[in-house]
């Protein structure tokens, strides 16, 4: 018996967020521990990897997700995205980053396909040609995830059928509209948070960091727009963390903990009050600890 009930189908939505997506493991664990289970999981980029681990076997999520993140964080060649970025800018190095990520994903997913997952799963990529979201990519889960997480420069685009696919963050940093399109009547968003940093953090940054920050603001602006649109039609619960480096995988254990704390706070706030047995979240709107300016 769960204390918080949602209109079904309920989707768990995992945003992109590079290393900060580790926090989604903590968030998702707390939701599962409270007996909240999804009918559909949707993810972008590194969030798609977490979503696929959940879809493969919710019962094994805690162990599998931590194992995969631990393996990637231990891989010195992958654990610093800055190093991967330099490799990518230098030319063919990005193919090596992809090969290494493929190895770790294959250890978790072997060669299973989407039909073999326990929960329906959608990963979002960007079709480079049309500029639109693509959700049908890849024969195996591993190939699907590689296209959804093909972050520009760090990894090369992935060819699937006639499409050239890259990271889904370019069109769906928070793939909530894809969840709605797939029929979700409510969503819980495991969100890696706003692109905002403190003013003192931008005092002494270099020109390339100004450029990177402008880029993340662009991505986030679009994600906020999608969240607001979805919240007009269905209940959208966001669990967000605004801390944790997007670039340092070695901090994953701390970021997972931040995710647990954020999820506990949000879900406690939504819990039934005054001795009631349960609360149904059925009114469209934005719930949770989002920092979105909602007019």
């Amino acid at each position, binding site marked *: 018996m769960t204390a918080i009930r949602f209109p079904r189908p309920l989707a768990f939505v995992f945003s992109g967020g590079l290393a900060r997506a580790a926090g989604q493991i903590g968030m998702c664990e707390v939701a599962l521990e409270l007996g909240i289970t999804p009918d559909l999981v949707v993810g972008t980029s590194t969030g798609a990897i977490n979503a696929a681990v959940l879809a493969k076997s919710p019962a094994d999520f805690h162990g599998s997700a931590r194992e995969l993140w631990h393996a990637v964080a231990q891989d010195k060649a992958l654990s610093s995205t800055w190093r991967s970025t330099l490799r990518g800018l230098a030319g063919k190095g990005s193919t090596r980053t992809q090969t290494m990520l493929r190895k770790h994903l294959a250890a978790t997913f072997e060669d299973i396909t989407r039909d073999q997952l326990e929960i329906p799963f959608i990963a979002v990529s960007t079709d480079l040609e049309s*500029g639109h979201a693509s959700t049908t990519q890849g024969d195996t889960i591993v190939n699907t995830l590689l296209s959804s997480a093909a972050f520009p420069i760090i990894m090369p685009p992935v060819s699937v059928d006639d499409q050239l696919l890259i990271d889904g963050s370019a069109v769906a940093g928070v793939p909530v509209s894809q969840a709605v399109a797939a029929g979700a009547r409510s969503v819980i968003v495991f969100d890696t948070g706003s692109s905002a940093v403190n003013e003192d953090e931008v005092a002494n940054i270099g020109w390339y960091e100004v450029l990177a920050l402008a*880029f993340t*603001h*662009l991505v986030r602006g679009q994600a906020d727009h999608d969240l607001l649109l979805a919240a007009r039609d269905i209940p959208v619960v966001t669990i967000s963390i605004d801390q944790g480096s997007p670039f340092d995988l070695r901090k994953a254990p701390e970021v997972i903990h931040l995710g647990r704390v954020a999820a506990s706070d949000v879900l406690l706030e939504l819990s039934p009050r005054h001795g009631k047995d349960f609360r149904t979240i059925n009114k469209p709107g934005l719930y949770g600890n989002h920092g979105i300016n909602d007019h």
Partner: protein
Amino acid sequence: MHVPSPVTISTVGPREPMVLAHRLPRPIAYVMAGGGAHGSVQWGLLQALGETDIAPDVLIGTSAGSLTCSILGEDPLSALSRLAYVWSQLDIEILVGDSWMAMLSAATKKSQSLAENTAEEATLKSILVARDFSELKIPTAAVATDLATGKATAFDSGPLIPALLASSAIPGMLPPVTINGRRYIDGLASANLPARLAVERGAKSIVVLDTGSREPAPISKSATKVVSRVNNILNASQRRAQLAYASSHVPVLVLPTPQDLGAALDFRGTMSAASAAYEDARQFLFDATKLPGRSTLSPGLYARGDRLRSDPDLGQFLVPIETSGERS
């Protein structure tokens, strides 16, 4: 100096003004997008709007659009001839200086930009007489992005030149500008076409003066081409979001703009782009006068229908304005 005039190449000379203002609820905002050298398109669009009876109550612009707004806001009567002069003179050296050695040296250091904005500042001060927003005759706002938070911020009071420099501080290339203790960069990172801000600030109808776009580059796996393509995709989706928000609240008239322009920092084609924009916008505005009914327009996206009809975000708001084939 030779300044080509769009009017001389038009097939029809100016007649009675096209009557359209009574269809637009007031206050009417002109919303001007950023776009570097493509900003010259807005000169052509303003020329076409000058042949209607529409007069803007407020102006809001981003980057190149914030400069066009300031010129118009400072003196609406002389704006067209001043814009003609500005766009015939502007080029990349005037904006970022001509020292490539200095840029290379900046690239290797931890500076906040590749170029300084001293050349741009001197250029702005020579174009504009006003130094404070309060000196402008039409209320004007310049949109920049708060570097730390990513929020779109509209400057409409206080010193004008720093706000314009902030609004057009291309990230990585020109330095962030500190205003009231916070750093700001080009409004393109948050609202390159600030239609939403216009609505939030009270506009009851909007005329969009976009800057057009360039032919999409061929798709390639090269890292730099992918990044440039991603930038286009993000800008396009930000534009759709801005137009969707605005046209669900107020009538939004989107003037057509050329889609075959050169690079955004290539200033060679600015005059011909403006002429083409003028011709199309003039026909569009004439077609808009044929919209059925007499009362003010209801909220919606009043635009050429061809490419928007199937747009998942904008199609629902579209009120297509088709070419009638006959001109005024």
